[in-house]
């Protein structure tokens, strides 16, 4: 259980969220550009990029929240890495826009499967990352 945090200046988490958001969006853009450059099919590259970014970002959030559960850490950690960084690294609007393209190419069932499958895969990895001790301390 996270303990109640004392009042803190507003600019601190705000600056952390902005910095994390910039870095997270850049990382997502980097993955997209890299996959578009290496995979021949644009549709496949965009699907891989969105799936990978969202599933990895959710797993990363699980790992972060688990680490914060166990160790606490500085106040800025969750705004910087969780809300800003991984929040902006993952995306929902890009997903929904991509589903329109995917539906035209592969049908409505493929889009529903892609989204719900991503949610389930991400959920399993999120739980695993949150509950797995990264420091070898053993489950508590």
């Amino acid at each position: 259980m996270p303990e109640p945090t004392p009042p803190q200046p507003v600019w601190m988490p705000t600056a952390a969220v902005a910095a994390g958001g910039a870095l997270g969006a850049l990382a997502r853009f980097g993955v997209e550009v890299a996959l578009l450059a290496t995979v021949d099919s644009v549709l496949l590259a965009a699907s891989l990029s969105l799936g990978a970014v969202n599933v990895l970002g959710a797993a990363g959030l699980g790992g972060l929240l688990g680490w914060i559960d166990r160790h606490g850490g500085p106040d800025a950690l969750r705004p910087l890495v969780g809300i800003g960084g991984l929040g902006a690294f993952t995306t929902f609007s890009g997903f929904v826009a991509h589903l329109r393209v995917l539906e035209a190419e592969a049908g409505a069932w493929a889009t529903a499967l892609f989204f719900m499958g991503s949610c389930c895969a991400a959920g399993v990895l999120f739980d695993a990352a949150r509950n797995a001790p990264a420091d070898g301390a053993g489950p508590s």
Partner: protein
Amino acid sequence: MILDVVAVAAGGAVGALLRFAAIRRAEARTGAAARPWDRVARATLGANVGGCLLLGVWVAAAGAGRIAGDWPPAAANALDLFVLTGVCGGWTTFSTIVADGARLRAERGPASALGYAAATLAAGILALWLGLRLGT
């Protein structure tokens, strides 16, 4: 290229701040002790719907040549990256949907988590459709 990088980073910061403002407002309004899932999830849902709406409006209006139609291609492309990849991408989030879903699954069972994900998807598609209509 450097322009694209700056555009994505600046947009991501703006988008993340918009989402953070919604989370803070929801926390302040309901009080920190009251039902942590509901207040954060509502703010996240609002951010996700807002980002999809903006994306729809922008894609439709830019597609019709009504935004930056006479800009040089490099600048127009950077503006697109700022708004779509940066602001819309950073305003909306997937990791928090999964975090809320995991909490729902633990508290109320897997059907609630799947229902929450499906409801978010439906709201997002509806917002995108509405945005495309508004932007045309």
